[in-house]
């Protein structure tokens, strides 16, 4: 059964871990408050209450936190270590990356029995993250476009001009709402895969997101 991994490596730098957990927290807040904004419950007892007001405030604050986290992560992909680098997110662009992807896919499809060792990111995971990143960008753009409508002609409204010409007003709402379901689909996949790889790789997949350290069987080439 489990066999010990020999090499301990510092993989996830502090900014990477921080961004990950800020994302977790802000996405949770955004999803809960977002569903309430989409389908509110009549919590208010008097017209002087501010239930929806506060819920929207939390949503907008979390949205700013999420956006800052995402932008920071993009910057870190340029300045951080190689595991955090932007190249990690396009494994399909190189022959070596494609080979890794196929190996991993074969393992997932029960074709291969040996779990391919990954030191940094799982190449299939980063492919999913790239798609997820596109959804995030769509969420941020449609979200802030809807938000900016309270001040038409303001700087944010002007800056997001192209979004208003790409989407109808209700189209933005639908895209913003439907994207959340895709993020949910991703979260299920993400937690399952992290759990699976933690069990199969014995490399501390899950705890590495807290400590930054992973354990590998082979020394990295």
């Amino acid at each position: 059964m489990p066999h010990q991994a020999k090499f301990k490596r510092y993989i996830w730098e502090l900014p990477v871990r921080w961004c990950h957990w800020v994302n977790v927290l802000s996405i949770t807040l955004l999803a809960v408050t977002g569903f309430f904004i989409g389908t509110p419950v009549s919590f208010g007892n008097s017209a002087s209450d501010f239930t929806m007001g506060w819920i929207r405030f939390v949503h907008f604050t979390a949205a700013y936190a999420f956006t800052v986290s995402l932008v920071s992560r993009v910057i870190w992909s340029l300045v951080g270590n190689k595991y955090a680098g932007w190249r990690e997110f396009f494994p399909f662009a190189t022959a070596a990356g494609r080979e890794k992807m196929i190996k991993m896919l074969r393992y997932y499809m029960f074709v291969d029995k040996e779990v391919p060792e990954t030191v940094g990111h799982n190449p299939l995971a980063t492919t999913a993250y790239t798609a997820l990143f596109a959804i995030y960008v769509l969420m941020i753009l449609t979200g802030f476009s809807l938000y900016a409508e309270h001040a038409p002609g303001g700087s944010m409204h002007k800056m997001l001009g192209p979004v208003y010409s790409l989407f109808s007003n209700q189209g933005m709402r639908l895209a913003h709402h439907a994207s959340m379901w895709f993020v949910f689909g991703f979260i299920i996949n993400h937690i399952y895969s992290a759990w699976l790889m933690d069990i199969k790789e014995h490399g501390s997949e899950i705890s590495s997101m807290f400590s930054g350290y992973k354990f590998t069987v082979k020394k990295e080439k």
Partner: protein
Amino acid sequence: MGTRKDDAVDGQQELSGHSEEYSVGEILKKRGVSRRDFLKFCSAMTAAMSLPTAFAPTVAQALDEVKRPTLVWLNFQDCTGDSEALLRAANPTVGEIILDILSVDYHETIMAAAGHQADEALENTITKYKGKYICVVEGSISMKDGGVYGCTSGKTHLEIARRVCGSAAATIAIGTCASYGGIAAAVPNPTGAASVSEAVPGTTVINLPGCPCNADNLTATIVHYLVFGKIPAMDSKGRPLFAYGKRIHDNCERRPHFDAGQYVEHWGDDAHRKGFCLYKMGCKGPATFHNCPTQRYNEKISWPVAAGHGCAGCSEPQFWDTMSPLYRRLPKVPGFGIEHTADKIGLGLVAGAGAAFAVHGALNALRKDKEPEETKEG
């Protein structure tokens, strides 16, 4: 007097130059409209244009002096709802005043002339006042197959629009159909209905969408033109900012109920009787830019939300296609049946993903993995 006219309202020179008629002020006096009513009208218009009250005397002075402009009103693919709204405008004799201010030389619905006489009247106006008259267009313009689906006196609407709007000082697209194509342009748009700005590119078009357009907004636009000699500031969709610069949701009288979290859940429920927020009933106020909450309709008596019905978003582009279903918050998802909301589809997606990974997990629990050789300790 003379100096003020020279430096403040240069544009109106152009307008006043062409007409041998009396000034607006003189006409109103002749028609028996009291000075008091006239000033009340000026104040109402100043407010409608979102100008400070201090501008009311300027508006009055300018209207006193300006000669009445010539106006032609073209009806294309429409329901004449905007003409109806204008004729029923009853704010301190606004209806009378607007019709008196303007020399409506051509309006198929209300003019006495018919047939060849009407054609002649239009022809005379556009030749005589070329580049000086105001053209109001109501209804969308059929563009498909050369525009044959909409004709008046043997000429296509497209042809008429290009000719009449092309030599107007400015064109006002009144109502959603003229502004954005409206219901005629809704999917599948069999006549190729288009807005005035699409059908007659290159002309100055002021869009006054709404179904119908609030007549006060039309009057204010024309008064703005008369007073300042130029068209009002507009947004990216060609609508005057004074009327379409704010969202309905942000000026709504039911907004406190929205912020508080008090919503109508069903038509006729207790919350509905108490006048709570119509958000859950599909109100499109958060998606619609219009001054309905402040300007209101029918002598400022009411507007849809005040009457207990959510906003339909009638003054937004493609409202018929994008704002439906009217009583739901979100549009239907393209490619799925009418009963499938984004949430139902989303739940299906998540349940599917959950099931797939559960099966994958179970299969993984059953399989024996091969360990890399070098990790095995002896």
